[in-house]
């Protein structure tokens, strides 16, 4: 029987397609990109080895540094927002709505599955100005303020992008964190209530520490997603005005495919990958220290 469970032919037959495709079209390209980051050129001109020049260029390229800053700023702000809003919603589901929360959960989750491009075009119109003024400016006019051209300014575009992403994803983080909150034993909460802890004190002293692990997973999850932001910022304002809201992902795309600098594009991709790695490990390590203290 053991022999049948270890049948070599079946193992090879069922594993080979996934293993081969993954190795040849994912891992080999990753190593290839890593190698390319030390070269200059493209398919037409051929490639020349330049050593670490691309990485040195990266640190001196104002556009690259700007893209790095946009990515970092976006990640930190959106991650903080997602976790705070998601957690507030999850608390609402568990402690206020209780069993009646299924419908609200489903409705609030829906924007998560919408295409970023569709959401970005929607928000672009929602915040628009001029002949086709969107509701946001209409409301501001009603309250006596003049219209604002949101997408003409880098910082306002950034703000719209953050609001847009929070609108899209808060329902997802709410459900993720809700799953963690539901796992807290009812007895723990009951005994805390009997001891006189209620409302905010119950949340800050009992619930928050108990949901620390799932909060940590959300932070890691969110960093990993927001560091890769691409569609939203591209569709909202084309990374602009100018390149003020161009993240690393979009800068890599433009370097490689619009300016045909395959080597430099790969360097940007390597920096992005390192960033994802550092953030994930960093968040993980900090949390470990917290536990031991």
């Amino acid at each position, binding site marked *: *029987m053991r022999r049948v469970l270890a049948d070599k032919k079946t193992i090879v037959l*069922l594993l080979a397609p996934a293993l081969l*495709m993954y190795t040849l079209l994912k891992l080999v*390209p990753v190593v290839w990109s890593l190698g390319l980051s030390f070269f200059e050129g493209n398919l037409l001109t051929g490639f020349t080895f330049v050593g670490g020049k691309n990485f040195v260029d990266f640190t001196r390229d104002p556009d690259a540094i700007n893209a790095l800053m946009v990515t970092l700023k976006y990640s930190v702000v959106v991650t903080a927002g997602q976790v705070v809003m998601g957690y507030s919603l999850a608390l609402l589901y568990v402690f206020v709505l209780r069993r009646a929360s299924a419908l609200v959960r489903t409705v609030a989750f829906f*924007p998560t599955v919408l*295409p970023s491009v569709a959401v970005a*075009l929607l928000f672009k*119109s929602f915040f628009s100005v001029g002949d086709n003024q969107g509701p946001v400016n209409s409301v501001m006019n009603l309250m006596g303020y003049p219209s604002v051209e949101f997408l003409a300014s880098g910082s306002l575009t950034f703000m719209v992008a953050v609001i847009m992403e929070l609108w899209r994803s808060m329902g997802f983080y709410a459900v993720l964190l809700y799953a963690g909150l539901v796992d807290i034993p009812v007895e723990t909460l009951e005994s805390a209530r009997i001891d006189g802890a209620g409302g905010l004190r119950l949340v800050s002293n009992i619930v928050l520490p108990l949901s620390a692990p799932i909060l940590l997973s959300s932070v890691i999850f969110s960093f990993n997603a927001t560091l890769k932001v691409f569609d939203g910022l591209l569709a909202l304002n084309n990374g602009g005005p100018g390149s003020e809201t161009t993240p690393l*992902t979009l800068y890599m795309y433009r370097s490689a495919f619009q300016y045909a600098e395959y080597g430099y594009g790969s360097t940007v991709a390597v920096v992005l*990958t390192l960033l994802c790695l550092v953030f994930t490990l960093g968040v993980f390590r900090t949390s470990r220290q917290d536990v031991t203290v």
Partner: protein
Amino acid sequence: MTKVLSSVVKVVGISLLLAVVLYPQLWLILGSFKTQNEFFTKPSWSLPSSFSLENYVTALTKSNVATMYLNSLAVTLPSLFFMLLFGIAAGYVLEVMVWKGRQAVLLYFLAGIMVPGQMILVPLFTFYFQVGLTNTLWPLIITYIVMGLPLTTFLMATYFRAIPRELFEAATMDGVSMFRSFFVIALPLMRNAIITIAMVEFFSVWNDLLIALTFTTRRNLATLQVGLLSFSDQYGSTQYGPLFAAISINIVIVAVVYVFLNKQIMAGLAAGSVKG
């Protein structure tokens, strides 16, 4: 008294939340019925004067949205099929079957989950160019399969852990080969897990812009996301009604999948709990 007050706060809070989530979507759908004139002359929250489907007809016929839709489907369906088939098969071999090194191979798959797509674009572009696949939809399909494989494999291996291995051992006693067991036992048993993963991967493939944009070399190969990005450039000035209709069309299939499969999964969960 405090009870009344707290339930008022509750109702107001929930209404506010639902309004924030729903209003932009409602506004989009209403906008898809407005004429260009209404966009320019009426306030943004006004209702459309009629619910004519003219904007939808314009979007589908004059702006290639129908072609984009078909392209998106032609890419998404085969990608999903092969990604799931290969991923489930690999998960089965890595969890149910017994052999040396399966733990290492599982970790090997896991390593690929975090890598951003940008890290494989240039080599893949070069590869597709060399083998002459550019100007077809194949680069998209192949890349989506590869991008989805690590997560599918990893999740399926985790789900297979929940099935007692005795089930497969009993089947082999009856003379069923492990290869056949995969199709007659594993796939039917994993139905709900497969639907869940299929749903997650459907949204990530259908909504993708990065890969579609990189490998779409011709206008007539554009998927919905790529096509919508340059939608406004087709006219001298932006036609808002057709644009809103096109965005709504883009969302329809996502909404249908969400509503339909949400029910499916709930039903599956209920059925499981009765049996348990």
